[in-house]
């Protein structure tokens, strides 16, 4: 039974990811006083891409063809780590957060290589900027997760979620506030949202992720887009599971699960609205100000780690 729920959680993460993207786009359109596309648009985009032909540049090698598979595979693997409606997940209790962070790094490594393989300047540019952002984002990512892990004495996501579930929601913990701030900044950087990267751009000045996938088309592009949507959904779910898991079902009854699912949707909706507001409200950072952004995230997460030693005294 638990296994079935865990499997369903992973499937919701994977299949619901384009919907999350669609809702963000709709919110942004609303904030910009436009009508905007339907929230189911990303699904029809994916279907359209699956029907199309796969065009491969003449300079591409085997690496180009294997990247969408590896990227999609690692992102799906990451999606099996995160608990949604109950404090456990498919690999949630076996794999710890180091494995999660480095699986994302594996996907990014191959995507950067794909940028080189097209033989154009955009790909290399995207890869170079991605190298800068990702190398600086690893430290705050891991440090904020370490802060939460040290408090809860667990290193696996499901364990941390279970521990947080047992805490009083009204106890304000400095560690958690600081860790949430820095992890939110890292999520923005890792998933390529404003103000670090513009996910809807095709201008060279503002490309990071788009630059690397510029040469892809057809089903390959569909898998890459889907992978990045799953990554966004998984990171949002990670934020919820680590910092606001109350409402998760502790028993396997249908009632508890449906309540948990409703609460989860509400929390994700809240985060989505917040993300849309931030994206519409701030301008994209100049490239060489992004290290400052991530530096602030590193310092805040280091402070969160320092606070864990102060709290446990």
């Amino acid at each position: 039974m638990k296994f079935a729920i865990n499997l369903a959680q992973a499937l919701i993460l994977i299949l619901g990811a384009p919907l999350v993207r669609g809702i963000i786009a709709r919110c942004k359109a609303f904030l910009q006083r436009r009508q905007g596309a339907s929230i189911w648009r990303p699904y029809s985009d994916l279907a359209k891409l699956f029907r199309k032909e796969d065009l491969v540049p003449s300079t591409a090698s085997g690496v180009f063809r294997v990247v969408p598979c590896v990227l999609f595979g690692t992102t799906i693997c990451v999606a099996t780590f995160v608990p949604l409606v109950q404090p456990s997940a498919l690999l949630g209790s076996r794999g710890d957060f180091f494995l999660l962070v480095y699986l994302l790094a594996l996907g990014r490594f191959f995507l950067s290589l794909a940028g080189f393989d097209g033989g154009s300047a955009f790909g290399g540019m995207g890869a170079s900027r991605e190298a800068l952002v990702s190398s600086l984002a690893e430290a705050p990512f891991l440090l904020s997760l370490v802060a939460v892990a040290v408090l809860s004495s667990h290193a696996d996501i499901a364990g941390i979620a279970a521990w947080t579930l047992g805490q009083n929601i009204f106890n304000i913990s400095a560690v958690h506030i600081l860790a949430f701030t820095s992890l939110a900044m890292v999520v923005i950087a890792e998933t390529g949202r404003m103000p670090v990267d513009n996910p809807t751009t095709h201008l060279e000045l503002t490309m990071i992720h788009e630059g690397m996938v510029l040469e892809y088309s057809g089903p390959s592009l569909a898998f890459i887009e889907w992978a990045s949507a799953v990554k966004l959904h998984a990171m949002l779910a990670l934020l919820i599971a680590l910092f606001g898991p109350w409402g998760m079902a502790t028993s396997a009854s249908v009632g508890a699960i449906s309540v948990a699912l409703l609460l989860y949707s509400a929390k994700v909706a809240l985060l989505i609205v917040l993300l849309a507001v931030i994206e519409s409200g701030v301008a994209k950072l100049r490239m060489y100000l992004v290290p400052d952004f991530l530096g602030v995230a590193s310092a805040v997460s280091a402070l969160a780690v320092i606070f864990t030693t102060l709290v446990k005294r």
Partner: protein
Amino acid sequence: MQLVSIKIGFVFLLVSLGLFAPLVLMAGKAKTVRLFAISLVVGSNIVGCFVASQCFWRESGAVIDLSRFTLFPFALGIDRLSALFLLVICTVAVPVSIFALSYFEKHYDDQRRRWVWAFFSLFLLSMVIVVTASTGFAFLIGWELMTLLSAGLILIEGDSAERGHNVFIYLLMMHAGAAAVIAGFFLFLPYSPGLDFVSMRTASGALPTGIRTLIFVLAFLGFGTKAGIIPLHIWLPRAHPIAPSPVSALMSGVMLKTAVYGFARFAFDLLGGGPWWCGYAVLSVGAVSALLGILYAIAENDLKRLLAYSSVENIGIIFMGLGTSLIFLAHHAPVWAGLALAGALLHVFNHALFKSLLFLGAGAISSATHTVNLEELGGLQRRMPFTGATLLVACCSIAGLPLFNGFVSEWLIFRSFLGGAVLMNTRAPIVLLLMVGVLALIGGLAAACFVKVFGVAFLGRPRSEAAEHAEESPFAMRTGLGLLAAACLWIGIAPGFFLRPLVSLVQVLVPGAGVPQETLSIARVIPWTAAIILGVTIIVALLKRRERVVRTWACGLPGLTSRMQYTSTVFSKPIRFVFSSVYKPDRKIERLPEDQPYFPVNVTYHSVRTTSYEKTIYRPFVEMILSWAHQLRRLQTGNIQVYLLYIFLAIVSLLAVLRFQP
């Protein structure tokens, strides 16, 4: 029976590497004779692997005592720590020798080839002696031989002035380090009856604290010089790139590890931990080395120099693990000390594997294109698919990505940092927990660096004629590369079989250690992640439709040339900009002709990174020594009567000493 076979195997290894192979190589002129000698080298290394794995997995040992025949006590013995490092040497030596079969044939003429192979075999022997020595003299003899033979191997390639200067600096640093190590050994003498490890171990309990600290510092400095920690690393980027690639692979992959072996032997086995601050010192030096090493590596365009700096980085990571272990030892938390030590030792093995693979790959590239400058390579994956695939495995391993072996050891070290949280009432928690962030930064930069290496060299369009006409490497080279890549993948996906004996080794070195059980869960979860990723990859590959090859869209221009791609310099620019306080670049832009600044015919951009350890640390030190020497020169007046006076004064003072002796 098993013990006897191990002993026979060990003797065979030593004798064939030391005696048979060089003799046959030097004496025999026919090709078959030489082939026989080379297969003797390979075969004896395979036997060595077998011997080492028996000792490592099954806790057996072998001892060869030649003290009766030699002036000083010379004995070799394989205990568990030696077995691990012997395994490192032999496992790496087999693919490297197979690779070298083809490489040396391509690059050297007949006469030089014999010398190279003879030195190669003796070099392997010296490393085997170092890690299996069980007396101080055996260790030091092997140590010296290692230095001299590697210098000889570098000089065989050629002896231009620049090469001679680099070898000179190499020998100088190595001997400075060796002096410190010798001093460390000899400091045991007043307290221990002999210099064999057994008596040193028992005597270490009786050492006074001051001597103990001094021995630790000397061992750290001496072995650190050989290992290449900053700021004692200046010989590494000079010596490793100019050696032939298989020799660079051995030097970077294995020789640096013998230094780690020496340090581990001293710090954990013989001394049993140092003063309370030693762990912090080792940890911080390791962190600085790792960070600066990878920053220098990112800025390099010469592939072999980049790999040399990357070795500095990985040695830094190993020392971070060793330092963490020492910290936990000083705070009496042997469980976590064992975990950190396991991570460091596993990283030793992993680094040996993937660094040798990288250097062999650089050798394959230079064989095919006659250059290792990244700015002249490109598009090699389509021309050398197998070589590219193995180098991709190596790049993923060194970046510490899951499913490859680098991740497992870095994971162990990360988890040991987390263990700092249990030491609540000390300064340790913050330092160790913040080290997670430092190691994460180092890992991220390493990934960026090797994206650059693989992307610029293997993907895209070729940037020079030579790269365009590259051909796949010959069979022997491919075998060597493939064996190492397979080993990396094996440990990456199924590390359990290696972790279990490593844990027992650690329990010998750190008494009372038992690795926390949940940390071995990594061995259980990685196969699952591998299965998921593989499964999804297959499904996605099946779902993809047929593809059509087209030209890359060039924004309406007639076509893209190789000049329009990103180069290695440009790729690393953002990172070099952010860390510009480390690099301190010195830039010069020249516009020709000078009197027409707005219509230049030629613009030259010249940028030199002035990472001047030589200027700030070494030169003042050297100046000081030279000035002392200058002062001492006053004793040499040239007057014979003054010299007779010196002798007379010496006799008088001897008599005075005798008079006042009780």
